[in-house]
C-alpha cells in the first residue's frame, strides 16, 4: 500500500495525496523560481479546471485548463532547454495526453479570464517533471468571452 500524506491549501483545504504524485519543477515557474513542487488537483464537479497547488506554500494556487480546451488546434512548441528540463528526447515530438500534459494558467481579466498559450505549463507524464515552456518565445493570448468561447487577442 502506497504511503499517503496531506498538504494544506488556503483555497482547497486539506489535500490527501499519494507519495510521488507531486510534479517537480526544476526551475520553478517564472516569478516563483523557488516553488519546485506542485500538486495537480482535479475536482470532478469542476472539470475541466485543474488546480496547481504549491506543495510548500498554502496560499499559492493556480487555476488552469488543458491547452486543448482553450484551442483544440494548439500545437506544443518546446525549446531545447525545455526538452532537456523535462528529460524528453529531442528527436521526436511529444504527444499531448500520452507523453505530456499541457496546461494553460488562467489570469484574471476583468470579469473573465485570459491565458497565454505561448507559455503552457508542460508536465512530462512519464517522470512528472514540469516546466513552463516559454523558451520558444511565443505569445498567444486568449480571453474567455461572455458566450463561453475563447477569443484570440491581438
Amino acid at each position, binding site marked *: 500500500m502506497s504511503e499517503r500524506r496531506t498538504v494544506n491549501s488556503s483555497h482547497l483545504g486539506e489535500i490527501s495525496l499519494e507519495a510521488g504524485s507531486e510534479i517537480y519543477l526544476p526551475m520553478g515557474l*517564472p*516569478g*516563483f523560481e*523557488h516553488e519546485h513542487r506542485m500538486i495537480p488537483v482535479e475536482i470532478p464537479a469542476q472539470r475541466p*479546471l485543474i488546480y496547481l497547488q504549491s506543495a510548500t506554500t498554502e496560499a499559492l*494556487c493556480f*487555476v488552469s485548463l488543458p491547452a486543448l480546451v482553450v484551442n483544440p488546434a494548439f500545437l506544443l512548441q518546446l525549446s531545447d532547454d525545455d526538452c532537456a528540463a523535462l528529460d524528453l528526447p529531442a528527436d521526436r515530438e511529444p504527444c499531448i495526453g500520452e507523453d505530456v500534459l499541457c496546461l494553460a494558467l488562467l489570469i484574471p481579466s476583468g470579469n473573465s479570464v485570459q491565458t497565454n498559450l505561448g507559455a503552457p505549463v508542460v508536465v512530462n507524464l512519464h517522470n512528472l517533471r514540469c516546466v513552463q515552456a*516559454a523558451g520558444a*518565445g511565443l505569445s498567444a493570448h486568449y480571453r474567455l468571452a461572455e458566450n*463561453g468561447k475563447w477569443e484570440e487577442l491581438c
Partner: protein
Amino acid sequence: MLVLRRRVGEAILLGDGIEIQVIEISRTRVKLGVTAPPGVPVSRRETTALAAENRQACDLVQTRGAAGVEDLLRLLKNLSQETVKAPPAPADK
C-alpha cells in the same frame, strides 16, 4: 557595461555569494551554471513578462475565491446566470 572574456570552466563572481560559471560553449550558445543564495531568484531575461503574468494568475483564487471559480465554470459551460437555479432551501423541521 563590464565585458569579461572567459573560457570553459572559468567563472565570475557577483558580490560575495553569486558565481556564474561557463560550463559549455557551442557554435551559437553558452551554457552557464549559476550558484546563488536561496533568496536570490535566478531567471532568464525573456521570462520577465511571464513572471508578471504568473503573479496575476495566482491572484485568481486569492481575490475571487470559490465564487469566482464558480462564475468561471459557468462561463466555460456557456450557461448564463439566469439559467442556473439556486439549490432548494433546506426544509424546516
